[in-house]
């Protein structure tokens, strides 16, 4: 077992590699729960429900055509394929791939710093988690 640094993380959205403009990302998976407790129980009883998830990313704005503004802003409100490689690109390294609704793209401009951006996605349907070929 080894620790893995985030600097090698690779993220593509709709086929565009945004890694070089990204310095934070978060991918969570969760599941609904159903309370199926009936009489005679002293504690709640739960049953698993549908899976769900969330994904967000952000970083530093770049004004090139491959930068986050030109890539993401036109995709707001559409379904896109997100591929996330938390350990980078390489044979045997993990990869998550999922269809996702790009819910919002936000640019922030702190006066004494570089322009930053964030994007929020709602993963939809199955997440395919595999090791890269």
């Amino acid at each position, binding site marked *: 077992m080894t620790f893995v640094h985030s*600097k090698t993380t690779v993220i593509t959205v709709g086929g565009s590699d945004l*890694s*070089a*403009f*990204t310095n934070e990302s978060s991918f969570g998976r969760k599941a609904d729960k159903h309370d199926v407790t009936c009489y005679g129980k002293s504690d709640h009883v739960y049953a698993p429900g549908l899976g769900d998830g969330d994904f967000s990313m952000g970083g*530093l704005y770049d004004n090139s055509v491959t930068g986050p503004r030109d890539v993401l802003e036109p995709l707001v409100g559409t379904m896109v394929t997100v591929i996330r490689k938390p350990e980078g690109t390489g044979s045997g390294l993990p990869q998550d791939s999922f269809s996702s609704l790009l819910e919002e793209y936000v640019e922030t401009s702190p006066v004494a710093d570089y322009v930053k951006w964030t994007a929020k996605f709602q993963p939809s349907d199955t997440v395919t988690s595999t090791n890269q070929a």
Partner: protein
Amino acid sequence: MNLAAVMDAISARLDTIAGLRCFPYPPAKLTPPAAVVSYPDTYTFDETYGRGMDRISLPVVVVVGKVSDRAARDQLGAYCNGSGASSVKQVLESGTYTAFHAVRVASIEFDVVSIAGVDYIAALFTLDIAGSGTS
């Protein structure tokens, strides 16, 4: 970013200020008024994934004249002003560069430096520079 190229580019841009002698590295000796691009306070890698962006905090020292000299104060003031032909901030931030993407003159500190036994007033500019991590 190539550190030497960044320091050279900053010095070359400062050299467009009339009358200011510029050095892209700390020289063995200098005669005021002079600007010296010194070594970075910090060179921060991996501001983004995949070696996308690095960041440098680069000091530039401007030395003008004796502390007790009123003309030195006026001259240093021109370099420290937020705008004007001699404004270090205006001149550096209006330049175009290939060695890095962006520069911001973030702050100035003032100090007295001794050169050849003479105390000179100096302004220490801190530059916030960002550029590609791979070129």
